[in-house]
């Protein structure tokens, strides 16, 4: 398994579409998944991510569009002809076969003479070699999950598809498996496409995350990019929490920073944080659509009397403080009625209490601008 293999080709989806009668499940997506990467398709249920995965596996036929694996167009091929393997959400282990026979199934289909040795190696990779003779139902959920993974990767496919494979596991086991999956992916170098609705899971594991919504791709990028520079309000709210301040306009004093105006208050924003292509005039210019300034709860600070002055200041009233051990989450009510969420780490700094008047501050390079109406 650990032998060096050529990096598999990229997986390309071209205008891929799937309709179910008059419902559009996948609405013409274009996507390139680089060979050898850990890619996550993230979105709420019903966004078309599983349908996309099933089309790549060959279990669902596209209404239109193309699927290319390396240089080959595999759109018209059947599931059993594709060098793509799947870890199913329900694991779909064959209950009448032993663990070893389950893992060896694909190898035997392809008439591999040394299927037994390869299957045992795959079981060693997922640390289940001692369970080879058992039946799947004699194993725990986490072990079954690993058997399903071994059964797929043993075939050394060009692309491995994971359909919410950790959904049935409890939280602690899920964390362990996330790390394990990442380790295995780095070890075997196969392209992994992981479908999930858990944003934390997607960000923890994947090199690249594609956020899907209503059959379309909302944004594709590295986890940190998506989190710090979401392109849409949907992404801003789906990946973690965001405080969105509606803006009335911008003014541009020139230089590294521009000023955004919200409720008559000027807020300093680094120019680099503006969406690409956004033009800001030197005058206070009213913006036509709903433009928002977004600030993550953990980027907001509660300013104390001894803190250095902050470029951005918003005064408000603490309406709620909830302590969860790692951090305290505050709700701070603004004069215009909006409540901002603030998360402060439990690092020994003084805590605010309900009813306190506080001033919030943040760095100009820690806020993002959303130019899109929702």
């Amino acid at each position, binding site marked *: 398994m650990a032998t060096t293999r050529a990096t598999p080709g990229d997986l390309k989806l071209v205008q891929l579409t799937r309709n179910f009668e008059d419902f559009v499940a996948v609405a013409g997506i274009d996507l390139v998944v680089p060979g050898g990467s850990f890619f996550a398709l993230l979105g709420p249920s019903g966004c078309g991510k599983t349908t996309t995965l099933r089309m790549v*596996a*060959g*279990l669902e036929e596209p209404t239109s569009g193309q699927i290319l694996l390396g240089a080959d167009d595999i759109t018209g091929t*059947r*599931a*059993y*002809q594709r060098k*793509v*393997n*799947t870890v*199913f*959400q*329900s694991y*779909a*282990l*064959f*209950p*009448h076969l032993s663990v070893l026979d389950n893992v060896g*199934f*694909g190898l035997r*289909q*392809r008439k591999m003479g040394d299927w037994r040795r390869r299957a045992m190696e795959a079981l060693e990779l997922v640390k289940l070699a001692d369970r080879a*003779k*058992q*039946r799947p139902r*004699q194993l725990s959920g986490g072990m079954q999950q690993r058997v399903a993974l071994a*059964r*797929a990767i043993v*075939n050394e496919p060009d692309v491995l598809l994971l359909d919410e494979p950790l959904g049935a596991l409890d939280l602690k086991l899920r964390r362990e498996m996330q790390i394990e999956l990442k380790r295995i992916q780095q070890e075997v170098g196969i392209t992994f496409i992981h479908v999930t609705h858990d944003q934390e899971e997607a960000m923890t594991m994947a090199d690249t995350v594609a956020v899907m919504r209503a059959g379309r791709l909302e944004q594709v990028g590295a986890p940190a990019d998506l989190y710090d520079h979401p392109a849409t309000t949907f992404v801003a709210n789906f990946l973690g929490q965001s405080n969105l301040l509606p803006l009335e306009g911008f003014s541009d004093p020139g230089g590294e920073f521009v000023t955004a105006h919200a409720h008559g208050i000027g807020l300093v924003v680094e120019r680099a944080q503006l969406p690409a292509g956004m033009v800001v005039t030197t005058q206070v210019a009213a913006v036509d659509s709903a433009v928002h300034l977004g600030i993550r709860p953990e980027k907001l600070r509660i300013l104390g009397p001894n803190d250095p002055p902050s470029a951005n200041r918003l005064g408000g009233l603490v309406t709620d403080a909830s302590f969860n051990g790692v951090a305290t989450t505050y709700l701070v009510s603004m004069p215009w009625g909006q409540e901002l969420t603030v998360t402060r780490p439990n690092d020994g700094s003084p805590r605010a209490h309900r009813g306190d008047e506080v001033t919030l501050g943040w760095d100009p390079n820690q806020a993002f601008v959303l130019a899109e109406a929702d």
Partner: protein
Amino acid sequence: MAWLRRNLVVIVGLLVMAYILMPNLVVTMFSFNKPNGRYNYEWTQFSLDAWLNPCASAGLCESLGLSLWVAVVAALVSTVMGTMAAFALGRYRFRGRAATNLLVFFPMATPEVVMGSSLLTLFIAMGIPSGQVTILIAHILFTVSFVVTTVKARVASLDPALEQAAADLYATPSQAFWKVTFPLVAPGIAAGALLAFALSFDDYIVTNFNAGATTVTFPMFVWGAAQRGTPVQINVVGTVMFFGALAIVGFGQLIGARLRIGSRRKEAL
């Protein structure tokens, strides 16, 4: 009292078992009888005569052979047809599916007298002479429903992802069927086939309507013989069937236990 309370379930169970098994024991005992006269209802003397000459009663072995032949063919045909129908009903949505489900249920719900007489009417109207063929058609008709019902339950409990997983692991649709689906549905098919065999073998009412004058199955022979006296050979056949069925069940249990012990032993290693 405390002892009774603790063992009441066992005692009642044994009483019920005794009640059910009593006729079989009587049949077995009287197969070793040497009756005076034509009726084998009174114990007279131990004898192996009937066991040594099972075909001595005229027509018995012929009727037994016919019944076995009809039951095997009816079970085979209805198992193949019923299994295919069960897959179609369990897997696919098509026009007329609900109606088919209802129609499959009818032969099980219809009183046998009604089914037998209406079949006879049909055969006469179509000009098909009564005999082996009509018996077979009738038996396939009412056993196929039971096969469909047993197999369909099994198909419905199957995770459709299993077949997709087989396809994903390079199995063509027919390979996926024979390597994954069929082995998992097989217990249901076997149960359906055994049920069909048993139902066909001991059917009297429908058979009697459609057998014609000269075709005699084993249940018909027993009924006919009972009018004129009961040959001991009937008890011999009954005893063989009872202990044969018992042996098959016991053998199945033994294999199951052996497999379970085997897998547990492998676990321990």
